[in-house]
């Protein structure tokens, strides 16, 4: 199991990775566990990867509206997967900086 403390990761005060290239899936799983998500299912990954790929392609994380429309996971399911806030958690687990949009 990846121990985040033994890695030299650049994270902000809330735990968001500041350098997406430091990320790998093992780190994602460890961050998810920190956030109270014990098991990352294929659906969780679908959201986190969409989040990450959109950020890497556009330099900005998608809004919750875009997540619901384009990630292949509906808004309802997004909140079931990530009850503490889908956009924020998927960004954290996907290894990208904290999203700044209000929507």
């Amino acid at each position, binding site marked *: 199991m990846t121990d985040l403390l033994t890695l030299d990761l650049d994270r902000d005060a809330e735990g968001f990775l500041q350098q997406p290239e430091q990320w790998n899936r093992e780190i994602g799983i460890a961050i998810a566990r920190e956030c109270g998500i014990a098991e990352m299912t294929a659906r969780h990954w679908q959201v986190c990867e969409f989040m990450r790929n959109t950020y890497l392609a556009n330099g900005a994380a*998608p*809004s*919750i*509206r*875009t997540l*619901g429309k384009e990630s292949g996971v*509906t*808004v*309802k399911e997004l*909140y079931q997967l990530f*009850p*503490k*806030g*889908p*956009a*924020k958690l998927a960004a954290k687990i996907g290894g990208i900086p904290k999203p700044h*949009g*209000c*929507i």
Partner: protein
Amino acid sequence: MATLTAPQLETDRPTPTPIEKVSIIISKGSFESVYPGLIMANGARMEGIEANVFFTFFGMDAINTKRNASMKVATVGNPGLHLPTWLGALPGVSALVTRMFNREMEKLDIPPIPEFLELLSDSGARLFACKATVDMFHLTKKDFIPQLEDIITVGQFYEMAAGGEIIFT
């Protein structure tokens, strides 16, 4: 002569408790009065905060299926717009300004009101209408969006809001 000193900031204040629940009241019926409440409610859900939205008085237009798709920016009596009152009153000006706002909102990925309410409901925000207003305007549940959970009294609203923050808009 006595000199005034700046008040000292308390640096050893305990960390404030995070907000866990908000109940937002939307009481006005123009485009620019409805959006802030919706954005605040959605923002709460995005932070994992429980959110209730209570629509009252003209704010209820936002959940009225005959009206919520065509809500307009108030171009008269709205000094923030910096439009002369006579200009704001001309036919079509309100529609034009509303179109401009809609375009800017779309750029920020902020949905139109009916879609926004769906998004809120899917996010787990609970939507309520005010019973006194419903009675006064002779409306029924059929006039409202299907996502409306219930028509409730002020007393029920306070019960539901217990333990959280109340935001009036």
